[in-house]
């Protein structure tokens, strides 16, 4: 139907999707099994059967699974947000972290936390911060002909460092005992609290909406006016994508702070594997992003155990070189 076509390409795509569908539970299982304390799965099964509590069961279901689920939702949200922002801005280098969207969400969330408002407002503020930040970048970097790559990236990067400075400012004026928790917003990390219903729902709704919009997205990356001439309501589509990408960034930020480059790396890799067609790219990037962050979170806990590394540090180790490589390759492509 929408995704599956006949021919060699779709058979390959079928295998990729099959692999990714298997990768999701496998990565979750590996991540839950590994850690500072080895798990006795017999005891876990015993608890599920008899209801008699055990340490192993508690570690799996109350400590590790929530973290892994968070990692999956964050990875999936960032990857999808990356795909949407890249189509929206027609720029393969767009990503919630690079363009300061995550930073905006973090600053708004921090302000609400420091002012002592209820926890529910934090997510709301993060969503607002993400949309405002993305809208600002779009507005400020726009010129008559659309968006030039350079101006867009510069505006986003400057915006990101501005948000970073604000976060540092909040850090410097806050109490000693708050600082450890606030570093979370700067580096990106997980807590032992799983995603809530609102996080799952946001991801699901934006996913369904993007799959339905994916043919429009395919046309949009060929040019806004061109898409319009082929019958796409580009204004509505771009507005919906702006909101969708903003909400997904907010989901990621409220769960894990500012984690960088997932939204850049994953869409790029998946484009190489399944091609640029959004009907394929969106589900593939979502599953890959989720699994990748589940594994990354596991590595962050285990590589230097018992120390835990911030997940954002690991994603940056991978993301920064790749970003630089893409930037170089991009500039060479512009001058054939």
């Amino acid at each position: 139907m929408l995704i599956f076509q006949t021919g060699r390409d779709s058979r390959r795509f079928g295998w990729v999707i099959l692999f990714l569908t298997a990768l999701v539970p496998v990565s979750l299982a590996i991540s839950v099994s590994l850690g500072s304390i080895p798990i006795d799965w017999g005891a876990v099964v015993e608890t599920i059967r008899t209801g008699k509590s055990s340490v192993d069961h508690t570690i799996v279901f109350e400590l590790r699974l929530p973290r892994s689920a968070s990692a999956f939702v964050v990875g999936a949200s960032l990857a999808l947000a990356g795909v949407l922002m890249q189509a929206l801005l027609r720029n393969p280098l767009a990503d919630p972290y690079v363009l300061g969207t995550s930073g905006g969400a973090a600053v708004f969330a921090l302000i609400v936390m420091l002012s002592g408002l209820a926890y529910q407002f934090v997510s709301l503020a993060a969503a607002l911060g993400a949309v405002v930040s993305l809208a600002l970048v779009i507005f400020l970097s726009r010129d008559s002909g659309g968006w030039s790559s350079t101006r867009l990236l510069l505006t986003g990067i400057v915006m990101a460092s501005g948000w970073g400075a604000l976060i540092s400012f909040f850090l410097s004026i806050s109490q000693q005992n708050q600082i450890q928790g606030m570093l979370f917003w700067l580096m990106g990390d997980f807590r032992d609290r799983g995603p809530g219903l609102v996080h799952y729902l946001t991801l699901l709704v934006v996913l369904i909406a993007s799959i339905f919009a994916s043919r429009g997205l395919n046309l949009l990356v060929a040019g806004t006016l061109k898409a319009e001439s082929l019958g796409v309501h580009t204004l509505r589509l771009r507005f919906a994508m702006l909101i969708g990408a903003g909400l997904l960034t907010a989901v990621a930020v409220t769960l894990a702070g500012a984690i960088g480059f997932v939204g850049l790396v994953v869409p790029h890799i998946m484009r190489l594997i399944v091609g640029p067609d959004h009907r394929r790219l969106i589900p593939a990037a979502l599953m890959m992003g989720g699994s990748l962050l589940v594994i990354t979170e596991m590595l962050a806990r285990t590589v230097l155990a018992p120390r835990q590394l911030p997940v954002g540090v690991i994603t940056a180790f991978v993301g920064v070189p790749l970003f630089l490589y893409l930037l170089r390759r991009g500039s060479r492509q512009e001058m054939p």
Partner: protein
Amino acid sequence: MTLLSADGIEASIGNVVACRDLDLSLKPGTVWSILGRNGVGKTTLLLTLAGLRPLTAGQIRVGRDPLNQLTRRARAQKIGLLFQNPDIQFPVTVNETVMNGRHPWIEKWRDSSEEDQSIVDRELGRVGLAGFGRRNLSSLSGGERRRVELAALAAQQTELVFMDEPVNHLDLHFQTELLKQFLANYRSKKRAVVMVMHDVNLATRFSDHLLLLFGNGETCQGSVDMIANEENLSRLYQHPLRRYPADGAYFFYPS
């Protein structure tokens, strides 16, 4: 019968007024060329006629319907537009690019059909790129990309065909052959074609009507035989042009 009629329209961008109080009537089987100096608003007028820019004044009708009251989909089924310089930011195959032209005809939640694919294959064959479907568009030369765009436009199967510098990047052979072949095809199918052209001689040779934009909103239109003379064209380009006979026709030579 008229496919598109413009009634007292004004098209402008910034301070540039492309045309003022222009009446235009596009009949089936006619080919128009828009000529003018750089920056007089040729592209702006074309985009306005295609419904992609708002009118400053006047009204445009497609058949009997006002252009601005058509749904986007209905408009895309009637008006096809070839853009001047499409830039590629993301990798895309030749087949996908031509299939984009079928977008207005594919039902919303459906995928392209066998018939769509056979149209795509036929149009690719027509521009001499059969078998290029799986190639990455950015691996093609400028001229080959232009031919892919022309194939996509033809696959859209619209009764109004607007082209902004269709032979840009094409070599001499394809400039002549493709224009001849495409326009003959469009004429026989009773479509109406409007092209923005830079080459006066290609315009006079392949179109039957001319629309001259002098700048400041002043225009002049009519059949090629009526309009294409030394006086009009020299004034248009603000450069002296001489007309010479050649092979039963004529060509213009800038002195």
